[in-house]
């Protein structure tokens, strides 16, 4: 499970960074989305991976080893909402830029 998660984060970051450095605005947005997925998974992994462990302490014995860490999950939730909103906002800026400059190059003009 650790290996799968690590590979997933690595591939997402690699593709995200590559797309982020591309010249077209849409690629940049996709890159940022992928990076934010990777970061969310990363935060999640920082709370340690556990299978079948509930995040909330019930009436059972208060032994931390039996439970999952709830805090990273709350952090991820916040991070998801924020990056979603930022992506939406970036899309609006993208459209405005496309409309005003007539090109989808990130600098507003084609380099060649």
């Amino acid at each position, binding site marked *: 499970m650790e290996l799968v998660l690590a590979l997933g984060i690595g591939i997402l970051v690699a593709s995200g960074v590559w797309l982020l450095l591309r010249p077209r605005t849409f690629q940049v947005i996709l890159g*940022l989305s992928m990076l934010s997925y990777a970061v969310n998974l990363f935060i999640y992994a920082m709370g340690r991976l556990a299978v079948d462990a509930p995040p909330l302490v019930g009436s059972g014995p208060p032994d931390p080893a039996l439970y999952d860490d709830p805090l990273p999950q709350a*952090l991820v939730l*916040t991070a998801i909402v*924020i*990056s979603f909103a930022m992506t939406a906002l970036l899309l609006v800026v993208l459209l*405005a830029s496309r409309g005003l400059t007539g090109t989808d190059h990130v600098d507003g003009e084609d380099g060649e």
Partner: protein
Amino acid sequence: MTGGWTQHLIVLPILMPLIGAALMLLLNERRTMAKRIIALFTVTALLATSITLLAGVAAAGFNSSPATRAYLVGNWAAPFGIVLVLDWLSAMMLVLTATLGLTSLIYALARWDRAGPRFHALFLLQLMGLNGAFLTGDLFNLFVFFEVLLAASFGLLLHGSSKARVKAALHYVTLNVATSLLFLIGASLIYGVTGTLNMADLVVRIPAVANSDVALVQSGMAILGIAFLVKAGMWPLGFWLPRTYAAAAPPVAALFTILSKVGIYAVLRVYLLLFGGDLGWTGSYGEEWLLFGGMATMAFGTIGVLAARTLSRVAGYSLIISAGTLIAAIGAGAGDVLAGALFYLVSSTLAISAFYLLIELVERQEALPAGVSEPVFDDEYTGALKEDGEEEIGIIIPATIAILGIGFAFCVLLIAGLPPLSGFIAKFAMIGGLLGLQDRITGSTWGLIALLIGSGLAVLVATTRAGIDLIWAPSNNPQPVLRLAEVVPVAMLLAVCLGLMIFAGPTMRYMERTGQSLGDREGYVGAVLSAQRVGAGR
């Protein structure tokens, strides 16, 4: 904890703008007057609250009782719940934010708030994000408030949309979203190792981290530092700053001068709190990076300011010089330097903000900026200057060139750090502090002093050149028309700087205590971790 209702004042700088912005959403976009009144009222109340808080901190602190106060939001005990912390530094930053907010808002009322929709709501949300970032006591809420202020700043940057603004905003938004992701990686690495994000708790836990995990904490802190320094505009991370700020509407750029100081604040707070001690590796972690990075930033800003051909670029590079000075001073560390740097922070922020406001007035005769934009929403009102039932022109000030010239000269003296104004006092205090290090003066210290003086000279040369070109050269253009609402904020900002000069003694004492409190980590940790819950048995 006793103190009655006044202890709840801490949360007001966050709540008031939030409520004000929420009220705006209920109002139709055409009801400009109501929106202006709400915004003006909120920001004035914000200034009053901040000054009250500052006075409270100063009164408690100078009576040699602990000045740091923690406020438990949601009434959970400290490392578990969300804490707001008010101390010397955050009180000072709150007052600075409210001052800039009020002046920029008054300036915007003259015409700029009508250049696009929802200016006032975004403006208030920006202030809420700033205040929250200055008050919060844990890393994750710092992230959340960073996002609030960034989201609002995206909207403000696009205010009065034009091609240049949209192009600048595309880069600015992308860069800041990527930076926020770095922030998250850094914060979660630190959480993964230490199990906490509360800053006071981190102070206790970081020295206890096992040797095998130290590298993880260090990389987490380094990534976090990069996120802060991108905001602060350290070379080579600050390449975006002059262009972005030059594209923004003048009142927005004037408010943005505090935006880059948020990065400085975060470095001051997190770095000095977590790595201020002298235990093991935490004692000197990252010091050289800040010192040399800051010096490189100053050099870069100096070259940039000499190369700048427009006034807004000059202002942008002055901002970079000011950020570099502060970063280098934090890296140089130690007592009196910090006090001078804090004085410099306040003085340079006010001066550059006034400068951004002045630029548009000076350059107005060259070209009138287009204030009308295409409607995006159905209820949007895009008439830039026409208003029913209102005087279009307002009071016109005579002798505009003289007023502009005097204001311009004031700004130049302040930013370049020439006597007798507060910019000089701040630089003098910093250099004095550096020379006072005595046994620890090295080549880099002399380099920093040379850069401090040299950058001031470069600013002076660049601004004088532009000033002669724009103000003091004979011109065929008609004199620019100024309105009272445009001159008053500039005058207010410069008056505050004058006040800083006249009352330099008390201000400097406050700064010295701020510098000391930043070194007093036990005081901070004690105040936060021992904060009593309301209703808990005493």
